[in-house]
């Protein structure tokens, strides 16, 4: 352990002895937070697995209603945003201040595109009376379980989109901070933290995409 704190350096909180301890603590903190997020989505994934195993046909029919082109584009967009986010962290680690801002803005932009496409998809579902509740209307067979599919679709993608919105909000703040030069190779916990969060949101989508859009495509309705 290093020497006991002797006066406080810039950006070092009072409870820590040095930057190293602070960085490790914040890194661990973000990871523990992400574990809570895994289980937060986990409840919904469990519900999805239980119901899909019971009503595979209805779920396949529901999934046929989703736009696979838009879904695939969105997957690519989000993976792209993960790349730019990773590059933003790299730029911070190597002290390229202007690149940080550029990469973060790119991430925000791609996140915005994702949400925009999501809005298009949601609008179409509302117009086709596929939002659960009293207005839900389904011509084909087994309307009840198809509605259950859309329950899960909206709950899962809605919660995911909410995480995106929060992420974009934080990224905007980070972009401003980066512009002002608040980060350095020694002190970049915030960028690293939001990066981990952003990648986590990407991972959730990596699972949502096959579960909601792909499974059952081969089943003829």
């Amino acid at each position, binding site marked *: 352990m290093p020497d006991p704190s002797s006066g406080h350096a810039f950006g070092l909180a009072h409870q820590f002895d040095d930057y190293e301890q602070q960085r490790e603590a914040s890194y661990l903190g973000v990871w523990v937070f992400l574990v809570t997020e895994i289980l937060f989505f986990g409840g919904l994934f469990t519900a999805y697995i239980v119901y899909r195993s019971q009503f595979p046909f209805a779920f396949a029919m529901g999934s046929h209603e989703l736009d696979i082109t838009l879904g695939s584009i969105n997957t*690519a967009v989000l993976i792209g945003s993960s790349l730019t986010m990773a590059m933003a962290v790299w730029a911070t680690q190597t002290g390229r201040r202007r690149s940080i801002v550029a990469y973060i803005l790119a991430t925000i932009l791609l996140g915005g595109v994702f949400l925009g496409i999501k809005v298009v998809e949601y609008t179409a579902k509302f117009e086709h009376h596929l939002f659960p509740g009293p207005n839900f209307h389904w011509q084909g067979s087994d309307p009840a379980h198809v509605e259950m599919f859309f329950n899960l679709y909206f709950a899962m993608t809605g919660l995911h989109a909410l995480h995106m919105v929060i992420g974009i909000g934080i990224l905007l703040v980070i972009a401003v901070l980066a512009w002002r030069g608040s980060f350095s190779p020694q002190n970049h916990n915030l960028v690293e933290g939001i990066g981990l969060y952003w990648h986590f949101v990407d991972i959730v989508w990596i699972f949502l995409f096959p579960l909601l859009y792909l499974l059952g495509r*081969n089943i003829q309705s």
Partner: protein
Amino acid sequence: MSEHITSPKIYILVFLSLMVLTTVTVAVAFMELGPLNDVIALTIAVSKASLVVLYFMHVRHSTPLTKLVVVAGFLWLIFLIALTLSDYYTRGMIRTPLG
């Protein structure tokens, strides 16, 4: 702990692999493979997630503690899903009347 810096080359390589895997999973979804469809889709999803976790999220080069935290998160998710399914997959199995 000295920090490991992943080079942009690796990031781009990972990105490209993710794109390829996405294309493959969409293509395979339309083939008629029976139960294999689900297996392939999920395997690809798990591979993609692993790539993101290992490289974009730097877990490959982090401390054993971080790895433990990640594993614990997924292990608990498995607890939740597996034990819940232990109910759903054995329901109705006890119908046989007592003779």
